[in-house]
């Protein structure tokens, strides 16, 4: 049990802080009803927290061995969703397993990171930037991305792709490839818009509408852009110091959509103001920095890459969520990690921290 001392306690502490803050906010948006969201969320958090600690004790080699299976498992689940998935919020993203609704793309992100980590751990350093050995991880990334986008879930598709690319970057692939990617992005976007209305349209009409709403939110303030408009009103009216706990008129009076899930950050910023919102962002950033430091000091290359990849997933969660509710990017349905109400995201996030803990605990374990 000596491993207890090797756990990354500052990260655990910050996770507890953010999680507790989440219960508080769920209590607020439910208008003081503890049973509605806070209580089930607390239970899930506790389960996830225990799982995280336990995962941290398990040897990094075990997770290493698991990696390809998690990836394949994710691919299978995504394929199942595509053919048998359940509709939730206008998109096919959920798998119904008895009473447990479950979003396989969450597992996929973790699986991808694990698989890329083991790939680069296995790959001889001299081969890293060779074109054939670059092409293989590109395929590894492209497969889940291609499965997620038709769900339709453009946002998660982009997150998966970006996470994979970040992994390749962290692994030390030559800069030139990333320049090529940066050059290819505008061409890819142009192709998407060019395909609009043709028989080979690359994304669905629903996705195009989302993008339209993002580009011109005033066109239909009560339609698709309603969420963003109301969200900005909540943020803006919160001002510097906020309206006070449970005093946010926008959320308390139900003007905010998905106020307990994807848009919960709006309530935080409305009730606790700029201070509250930025404070939360700084806590998230601190967690990321701790994780990157942990990776920096990791002697185990699998563990290091794993930590970088998983922290990138965590970063993508809160960045995309907050960027969406502040109107910087289109709304994609990404939850605010550790705070938004919802089971699968909470378990996956705590699960990734379990893996990060394991990598941290076994940071000195060299493999040769």
């Amino acid at each position, binding site marked *: 049990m000596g491993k207890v001392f090797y756990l990354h306690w500052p990260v655990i502490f910050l996770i507890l802080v953010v999680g507790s803050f989440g219960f508080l906010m769920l209590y607020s948006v439910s208008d003081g009803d503890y049973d509605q969201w806070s209580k089930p969320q607390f239970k899930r958090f506790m389960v996830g927290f225990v799982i995280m600690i336990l995962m941290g004790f398990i040897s990094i080699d075990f997770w290493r061995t698991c990696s390809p299976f998690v990836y394949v498992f994710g691919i299978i689940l995504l394929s199942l969703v595509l053919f048998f998935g359940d509709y939730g919020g206008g998109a096919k993203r959920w798998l119904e397993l008895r009473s447990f609704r479950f979003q396989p793309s969450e597992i996929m992100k973790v699986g991808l990171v694990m698989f890329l980590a083991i790939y680069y751990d296995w790959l001889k*350093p001299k081969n890293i930037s060779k074109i054939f050995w670059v092409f293989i991880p590109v395929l590894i990334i492209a497969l889940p991305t291609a499965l997620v986008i038709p769900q339709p879930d453009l946002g998660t598709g982009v997150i998966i792709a970006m996470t994979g690319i*970040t992994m390749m*970057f*962290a*692994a*030390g692939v030559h800069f030139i490839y990333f320049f090529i990617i940066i050059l290819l992005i505008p061409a890819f976007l142009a192709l998407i818009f060019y395909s609009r209305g043709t028989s080979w349209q690359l994304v669905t009409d629903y996705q195009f509408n989302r993008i339209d709403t993002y580009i011109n939110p005033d066109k239909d303030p009560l339609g698709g852009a309603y969420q963003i408009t*109301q969200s*900005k*009103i*909540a*943020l*803006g*009216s*919160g*001002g*510097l110091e906020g309206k006070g706990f449970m005093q946010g*008129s*926008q959320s308390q*009076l*139900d*003007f905010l959509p998905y106020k307990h899930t994807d848009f919960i950050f709006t309530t935080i*910023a409305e009730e606790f*103001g*700029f201070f509250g*919102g*930025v404070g939360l*962002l700084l806590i*998230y*950033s601190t967690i*990321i*920095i701790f994780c*990157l430091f942990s*990776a*920096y000091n990791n002697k185990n*290359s699998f563990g*290091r890459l794993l930590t*970088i990849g998983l922290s*990138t997933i965590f*970063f993508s969660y809160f*960045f995309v969520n*907050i*960027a969406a509710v*502040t*109107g*910087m990017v289109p709304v994609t349905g990404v939850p605010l990690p550790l705070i938004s109400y919802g089971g699968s995201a909470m378990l996956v996030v705590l699960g990734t921290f379990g893996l990060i803990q394991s990598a941290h605990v076994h940071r000195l374990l060299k493999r040769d």
Partner: protein
Amino acid sequence: MEINSFKKNILEKKYSRRSIIIGASQLILVGFLIKQMRQIQLNETEKYRLLAEENRIDIQIIPPLRGLIFDNDGTLLAKNKENYRIRIVKDKDSNLSKVIDDFSKIINIRDERKIQILKKLQEQRSKSSTIIADNVNWYEFKKIVANLPSLPGIIPEVELQRYYTQSEILAHLLGYVGSISSKDIKRISNDDPILQIEDFKIGKVGIEKGLDKFLRGQVGLSKYEVNASGKVIRKLSEKQSISGKDIHLTIDSNLQKFSMLRIKDFSASVVVINLMNGSISAMVSNPSYNPNKFVEGMSQEDWDVLRKSKNQPLANKAISGNYPPGSTFKMIVAIAALEENLISPDDIFECNGFYELEGRKFHCWKYSGHGNTNLLKGLEESCDVYFYNLAERVGIDSIAKIAKKFGIGISPDLPLSGISKGLMPSKNWKKINKKQSWFTGDTLNSGIGQGFILSSPIQIAIMTSRIATGLEIKPTLIKAIDGRPVTYDQKKSLGIKKRTLDIIRKAMFGVVNNKKGTAFNSRVVEVKNNLAGKTGTSQVRQITEDERKKGIIKNEDLPRNQRDHALFTGYAPNINPKFSISVVIEHGGGGGKVAAPIARDILLYALNGNMPSLEAYPFEERNNVDKILNSIKREMISK
């Protein structure tokens, strides 16, 4: 092995560098988030605070009660009466057309109206509603209330609606209220919250329009906190509405009613002015209409009948009629001549039945002529030739100056719509408007109140009031607003010599009381109520020389719409006059024969405060008058 570990070291460094780059990029992205939050939360916070308040607060407007209108004695003329009506609300769960069909089984609704209602509801956003049945009687209302459970979306409600107790009698004066039109919106300031009240009614014509700003009142506001679905969470504040101010008019509604009944057979108008204070005691225009129909909503057919009717029931002829004043204008010409010292009352002009100017004949109404005529005789017998002479001597500009002093060609200042200014021509006026110079012939025509001159009945009444008092009487309609008396200065002297006015008054007394006077048959034999006045006949068309030769000179022989208007204006009693009057009977024929008896009866009623007694009338008239008065008496009781 050495080399290998060295290579590994380089690799380690590369990994570390890359994790730092990743961390730094992530922090930069977080910086963008903070920048965006700063923009929304700090720079634009005011804008969004306002929007949040707008979201949160629902303002409901409480309509004010409209002010009441009373007559001079406190009789209620316009009140607010309960109106039972039924509203239908769009409800996403109910089948609208079925509800309307079910409703129609209780209160019948025509098919085209059903389509109208459905269309209106579908055009609007959710939670919209419209009136499905208005002015429902109590029996039907009760039936709807009893059937409410089977009529989802049907809401019975009670609203207060304007009701005019005197209906036709005061229609033109009071006017009516109606829904706000786009034209009205321009009049009312755009931010008056009243405009947001559905179906709010404002004054459209008459006193209702003229005094709308007093009668309308101020809206109350209730502020509610609402949630996103519009459900009220709590009341934040309430400001009570302020009722409109009550108006007391100077109108004597009994006199008004009597006057109306007295002219009911004619297309005519009457104005009675109380000379003690300049207030208007009666203002009648016939035919009339029922203003309550406008409030309740009039059918297209009824509206077309009113609009297209030849005798213009919608017009208030007493203020909007434009008639040549005819011989009633002769007083003005006489005053002008006397004031300018151009004649002495005893100067004589000879009347041979016509006046010749540059080879053109200007006829007197009396074909055989009046012989030698002085001022008194000229007015009493209304000799046209005498006034042709006088007018030529005085000149149009002096006549116009005096006419304006007496209110001809000047808009009276009354809170009514459609007030006519009349027309008092001058040389300059003709040059500007007709692009012609003024001819002496024009002056002659003006001398007998014909030609270009136009006046409304109220202007003629004002003229007579000023002659009778020598004061600058300005007629008023408002006695009090909100219980506070409204007073006007009526004591300002006209600046006309007393001698001049005395001569004119003497002549006007003669018109009615001299055997040869044009209104001798309409004299009052009671000395205390002696009547003075002047008849007038205003030509609708000129009689051509041809027609004169053929012998068709009798007005009665012409088709009705070409016959002359009959005018009479006067005051009573002769000494210390209390009331003045002007009567215009369209196409009535001679003023003495038709208009004077009506004026006499109305003045006697005003003086008596009740039905005139037969003793006031000359013996030979009493039988005839008795019949007329009795029939009016019966109708006054029955109405």
